């Protein structure tokens, strides 16, 4: 009896007791035969695309290749740091390090190569159409990552298949030299042309379709063209003997042409239009980046979704006076330098009118916002300035009062030791949003960020957070890419069409420009694409970063300026009393001029990487 039961039990267990499938590990056959699993994997790769600024705080370049450092927005000339004082080093960068902006995320490249090969090997149940589309998408992601690598490091090894070590003790078969800088750009262009008809995903903004591929090509070819042109215009071009850095000048036109063709394919497709849903041009520009419904301007975004995937960008950067949390706010403060790069609507340069022409007195304004009247509407859409509203609320930006001293016949500047303080006349001294010279988490420049800040209720709290998306590509940039490429190719008329379309949307009216210069195009890019991770790369490819940010305190482009508004207290002078005046100064918390050296044009390669692969050559100046 007992024997019988034992036999029965043993017999019952036998069959698959030791051969069960794991419940926590997916096998290759399972992963590559289920389209849902493949899409999940793609989502992981999309999430891992690197960006220098972005809206998140991720720095994982080693393990899986992610990088997104929104705080880096405060490291250049469009903004400074006004948040927690333990990050004040961003205002005191003695010189950009040669390892800044470094990227070497072959972990992502390898995962994509592995996915491409394994899907073909194991994916027997996927249809050919599915395989083609997934492959195209994987190749888009790989090319995008190579673009991020080449714009930072110059030519990098082009690895397009998985590398397997044979345990022979000799790893030289796995060591590849750097490709030429031009070869990486050529690779991106040819990959985009090859896959654009296979991508599918029509109408999607978070997965790549053919226009996303053309947008990447448009930007990459523009970079390659300007590198070919402007690097060789330097007194001593930055090159390496093997071409890992440096593109021959003769290729500039070819690259510009390719960029223009790609841009035109997007513009002429009619799939995308500049966002013009809001009749107010300033609000409209803000919505063009943040509105998720009815937005046919954005081409490719990193989307966020409440409640699953959110970010802290609004918590960290909301205007101080209307923050909904008890901490945070104000970190990225736009500079006066950026504010003044927005032109007046009549086309005159954007320097603000602070003092009378003979510099004898202030100019007096009835309301703080009056000094910003008749400005490019993108100023409103990008920046919260004194007197502007956000979320329908007044923001309260006032530094203090200018009290008239009749004894000395001059003004005494009075600033509050805290926010929301009252002057002896019972009216406001320092506003609820500052600016303040020293308090942390208060704007130090007098300006706050509007672009990318969530306008919905409670999104600046730690509990709710924000789901505003990050824009990789939008039609506005494509217009500017097309304008720049056309201008470089001598097609000024066409360039004017594109740039005037952008300016029309910004409130300048149709055909606001009739002539064009390089400086105008560059300024237009700064105004339109501020805080969208373009400024650094643009100055690098134009080869002017070392002159704009030359580390000299007497260079106004290398310093960060602030604009402090004051209320005038001058009883007995009705023309001036109660009016507002403005003082321009170097931002008090800003310490060290921006200093970009020749060795910053290409980031240094990590010594560990160089040690592991003796075939790699260093970048110039390192």
């Amino acid at each position, binding site marked *: 009896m007992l024997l019988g039961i034992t036999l029965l039990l043993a017999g019952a267990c036998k069959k698959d007791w030791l051969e069960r499938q794991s419940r926590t590990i997916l096998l290759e056959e399972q992963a590559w035969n289920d389209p849902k699993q493949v899409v999940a994997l793609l989502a992981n790769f999309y999430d891992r695309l690197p960006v220098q600024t972005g809206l998140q705080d991720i720095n994982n370049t080693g393990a899986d290749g992610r990088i997104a450092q929104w705080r880096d927005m405060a490291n250049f000339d469009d903004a400074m740091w006004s948040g927690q004082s333990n990050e004040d080093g961003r205002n005191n960068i003695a010189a950009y390090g040669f390892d800044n902006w470094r990227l070497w995320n072959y972990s992502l490249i390898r995962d994509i190569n592995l996915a491409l090969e394994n899907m073909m090997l194991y994916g027997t149940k996927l249809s050919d159409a599915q395989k083609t589309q997934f492959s195209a998408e994987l190749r888009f992601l790989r090319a995008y990552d190579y673009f991020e690598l080449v714009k930072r490091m110059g030519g990098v090894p082009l690895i397009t298949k998985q590398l397997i070590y044979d345990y022979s003790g000799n790893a030289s078969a796995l060591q590849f030299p750097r490709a030429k800088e031009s070869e990486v750009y050529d690779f991106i262009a040819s990959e985009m042309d090859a896959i654009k008809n296979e991508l599918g995903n029509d109408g999607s903004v978070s997965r790549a379709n053919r226009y996303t591929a053309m947008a990447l090509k448009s930007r990459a070819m523009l970079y390659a063209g300007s590198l070919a042109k402007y690097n060789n215009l330097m007194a001593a071009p930055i090159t390496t003997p093997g071409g890992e850095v440096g593109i021959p000048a003769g290729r500039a036109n070819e690259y510009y042409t390719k960029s223009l063709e790609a841009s035109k394919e997007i513009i002429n497709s009619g799939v995308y239009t500049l966002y013009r849903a809001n009749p107010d041009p300033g609000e409209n520009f803000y919505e063009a980046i943040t509105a998720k419904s009815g937005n046919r301007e954005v081409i490719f975004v990193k989307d966020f979704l409440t409640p699953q995937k959110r970010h802290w960008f609004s918590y960290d950067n909301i205007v101080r006076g209307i923050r909904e949390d008890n901490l945070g706010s104000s970190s990225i403060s736009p500079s006066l330098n950026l504010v003044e790069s927005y032109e007046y609507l009549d086309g005159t340069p954007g320097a603000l009118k602070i003092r009378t022409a003979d510099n004898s007195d202030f100019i007096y304004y009835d309301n703080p916002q009056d000094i910003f009247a008749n400005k490019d509407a993108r100023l409103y859409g990008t920046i919260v300035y004194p007197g502007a509203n956000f979320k329908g609320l007044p923001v309260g930006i006032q530094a203090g009062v200018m009290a008239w001293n009749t004894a000395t016949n001059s003004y005494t500047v009075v600033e509050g030791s805290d926010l929301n303080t009252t002057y002896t006349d019972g009216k406001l001294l320092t506003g609820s949003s500052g600016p303040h010279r020293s308090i942390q988490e208060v704007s130090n420049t007098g300006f706050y960020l509007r672009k990318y800040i969530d306008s919905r209720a409670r999104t600046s709290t730690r509990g709710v957070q924000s789901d505003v998306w990050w824009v990789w590509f939008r039609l506005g940039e494509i217009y500017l890419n097309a304008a720049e490429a056309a201008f470089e190719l001598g097609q000024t008329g066409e360039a004017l069409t594109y740039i005037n379309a952008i300016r029309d949307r910004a409130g300048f009216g149709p055909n606001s420009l009739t002539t064009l210069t390089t400086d105008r195009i560059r300024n237009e890019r700064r105004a339109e694409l501020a805080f969208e991770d373009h400024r650094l790369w643009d100055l690098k490819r134009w080869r002017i970063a070392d002159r704009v940010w030359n580390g000299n305190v007497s260079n106004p482009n290398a310093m960060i300026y602030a604009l402090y508004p004051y209320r005038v207290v001058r009883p007995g002078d009705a023309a001036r009393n109660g009016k507002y005046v403005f003082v321009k100064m170097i931002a008090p918390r800003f310490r060290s001029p921006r*200093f970009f050296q020749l060795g910053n044009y290409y980031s240094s390669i990590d010594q560990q990487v160089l040690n592991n692969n003796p075939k790699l050559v260093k970048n110039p100046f390192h």
Partner: protein
Amino acid sequence: MQRFILSSLIIAIIAITGCKKDNYKPPTSILQGQVSYQGQPIGLRSNGVQLELWQHGFEVFSKIPVYIAQDGTFSASLFDGDYKLVLLRGNGPWINSADSMDVKVNGNTTVDVTVTPYFLIKDAAIGQSGTNVNASFTLQQVNTSLPLEAVRIYLGATTVVDQVNSVASVEKAAADIPNIGQPIQLTVNIPSSLSSKGYLFARIGVKTAGVAELLYTMPQKIELK
């Protein structure tokens, strides 16, 4: 509870005594030297130009950066051993040298690094003239492989004066210098922050195109009248 205290005490004792034994002593040998051309020290930007020291034979292989002071001197505290000294390419205002120097550090060691600059500043005379500082000098082109970009004068409140640490500066671009052999004049207005102090420091710098750093004269103190 008693057992907890006892065991944490034991851990603490182990932790404290454990550190003692196997820690390395800090490096005691000093390597020092000067960057010079024909015996003349080269003036540089403070903390701008880097020498690299490399040491083979250890698992960690990464450079020890040694920054050169503005009078061309440098020093580093090191362990005794054999090092390779390399000039960072394109960094200092001199010709790149692919060769490394072997440096044997044994106790305090002095090493002189000789370089060939692209330009030298000769016969520099800096003086006050009313509200301005005038400088006059000649350039000597030592090597013609890279062109001149500009010459500049810098004024500062302390002896540390250079491209980054200055209160005022004036530049003359190469295009405005028709003949390099002729004496060059630079004039810079004295800013009020310096004139109120009663003295200032001035330096002339020459920028070679394609090289990150300038070559400077030694800072000169000027008493304002």
